[in-house]
């Protein structure tokens, strides 16, 4: 009787964990797809990636128990799946040393920042820049969670994100993110 009870409990536990994963997958499906697109660069490959990753996630023996952890884990599963498909070269590009933005007075035309320009700007970014913005801003992960997904230190997330946002600003402005004095003379 006790042996049966232990077996039953472990089965219930396994199914509970799978339910957590499935629920997270359903709730995060659109954002996961957005992340897949940012990784793959095209929707067709992204569809294949998210389907494959979902099957792997649902078939995992010991997924995280907590929904928040499970959600970050799902993104990591998909990213690892993407890396396994031979995209390591792109990942290594993310390790390039970021360049500090120019210091000094700031003049940026905030009026240019709108949903459509941000969307277009994101499309122009390098995949590793788009990825970090996708994780933190669109998917809503904290730095620590993004670090876990990317398997890098939190400090790397900070620097990568700040450079990616600068690149996004430059993309929106068409490369006119400049110190105040210079921009005054050119506008």
């Amino acid at each position, binding site marked *: 009787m006790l042996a049966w009870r232990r*077996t039953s409990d472990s*089965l219930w536990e396994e199914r509970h964990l799978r339910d957590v994963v499935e629920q997270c997958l359903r709730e995060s499906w659109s954002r996961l797809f957005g992340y897949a*697109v940012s990784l793959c660069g095209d929707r067709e490959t992204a569809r294949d990636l998210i389907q494959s990753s979902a099957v792997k996630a649902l078939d995992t023996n010991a997924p995280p128990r907590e929904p928040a952890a499970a959600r970050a884990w799902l993104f990591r599963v998909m990213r690892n799946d993407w890396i396994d498909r031979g995209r390591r070269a792109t990942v290594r590009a993310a390790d390039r040393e970021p360049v500090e933005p120019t210091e000094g007075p700031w003049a940026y035309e905030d009026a240019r920042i*709108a*949903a459509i320009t941000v969307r277009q700007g994101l499309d122009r970014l390098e995949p590793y820049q788009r990825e970090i913005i996708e994780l933190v801003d669109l998917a809503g992960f904290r730095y620590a969670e993004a670090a876990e997904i990317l398997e890098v230190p939190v400090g790397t997330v*900070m620097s990568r994100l*700040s450079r990616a*946002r*600068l690149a996004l*600003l430059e993309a929106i402005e068409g490369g006119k993110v400049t110190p105040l004095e210079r921009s005054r003379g050119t506008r």
Partner: protein
Amino acid sequence: MTTIGWDEINAYVDRELDASASAAVAAAIAHDPSLAARVATMSKLKAEAVGLPAPTEAPPFPARPAGRRPVTSWRPLALAASIALLLAAGAGAWLSRAPGADPLAATVAAERGWLAGATPEASGAGVRVAVETGASSSLPDLSAAELRLAYLAADPVSDGRRGLFAGYVGPHGCRLGLWIGRGAARSAPEAVDVGDVRVRRWSADGASYALMSRGMDPLRLDRFAAVIADLAGPGRTLDDGLRIALKEASTSGGACTG
């Protein structure tokens, strides 16, 4: 003047700084218009990015794949006997059907009536029989989900890919069909709805399977597909784990509407 780095500005906007660092940035902003402008720009950029909608072209959510539990006394190979019996019992009216038809689509078309609650027809294409015993050693035992085998039909496709359609009925009349045909490459259950019939299809071990229903909640159908995919695995036996899974599946999602 305190120097606030670009990374800190972003972390401040993201509310990732601790209380003291955040207070330092706030104090610096009050005395530095340029810093305030940077923070304002980053705040606006973040707000717009956060508000971007997710892509709408996401593929359909896949049905839960088979797990690794040991599971069944039911074997796809054993189904050959059932199919042979059905084909031998009926004269092959189905042989006149157009060759090349998609066997699953043809099955859905042929069994739409039964799925909708109609009484099995004695005539027409294919071989159809009502099953009184409620179970078969050659078909999955779904009694743990209170589903009894009530109907069998030979798939009326004439190009050699004919299969078997097994109809199960729940205690409140919910109808669930299981089609088994020739195999394709191994695949996990996926939604391939045909009109108003919800269909979950998968392949394994040389056979193709499709679970279909008109009134069953999609989530519940997903769960049943996952469990039955488990049952179909080679060397599986119907154990407590699968009985629990079947019972769980029968109560998942919304109520069956017929």
